[in-house]
């Protein structure tokens, strides 16, 4: 894996970890997670990066370097360079999807519900990005 790939892998980790940490502190997110139907999101980024997020019995869990059986949704980002922009919030999921850079397989409605969960990340990680 090259440096760009590793950087994206770490950014992907940050995304998945962030939801876990925010939910500990933000009651609204905790509620939104509790209301998510049971399901999972498998991520496939480039040729080597994978991981999944699972919502089950009102709880959130996630794992890097792993694949889950029968994911509800699979999010595919083939281009690593584009993935960097995506995980750095330089481009949103809708734009990425419309441009054909983010492919979504499975239940589109579930991916949209997940989008509401992911929306929390930007504000909470702003202090980390502030120069």
């Amino acid at each position: 894996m090259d440096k760009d790939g590793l950087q994206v892998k770490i950014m992907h980790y940050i995304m998945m970890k962030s939801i876990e940490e925010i939910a500990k502190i933000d009651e609204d997110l905790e509620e939104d997670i509790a209301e998510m139907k049971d399901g999972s999101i498998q991520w496939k980024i480039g040729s080597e990066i994978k991981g999944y997020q699972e919502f089950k019995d009102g709880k959130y869990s996630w794992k890097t370097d792993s694949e889950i059986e029968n994911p509800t949704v699979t999010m595919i980002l083939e281009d690593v360079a584009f993935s960097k922009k995506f995980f750095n919030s330089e481009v949103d999921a809708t734009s990425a999807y419309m441009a054909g850079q983010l492919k979504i397989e499975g239940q589109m409605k579930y991916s949209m519900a997940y989008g509401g969960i992911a929306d929390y990340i930007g504000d909470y990680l702003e202090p980390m990005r502030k120069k």
Partner: protein
Amino acid sequence: MSEEEIVSVKVLMNAIGYASQQIALVDEEYKNKLNSVNASTVYKVADDYIFVTEINDGKISSYEGSSPLDATVTIEFNDYPTALAAMTGRIDLNAPSEKIKITGDEVKMAELSFILESVKEYIGGMA
């Protein structure tokens, strides 16, 4: 101190821990340096949060919770904003500061600096 700063620090520390392990998988020079040092670094934030990084026999691991009794280096941040500024490189961890207290083996700490420096190359664009 905001909730956003608390989350950012915890996510960043864990990301640094994860990145430290991942870099070893692809960077031979970094891996060789890990092989040459056994040490533990404890990060304490505002008497509220503890994050530990341990290197043993070339393997690096990290966890939250309580600090080991025999920590090689302990870095204590008065508050979350200071921890965030230090971990993102906005302030120099080694510069004298009333808000950062470093205790332990100074020689080992210098040997361990390569970890944060390497990680910053990968996280630099994000933080």
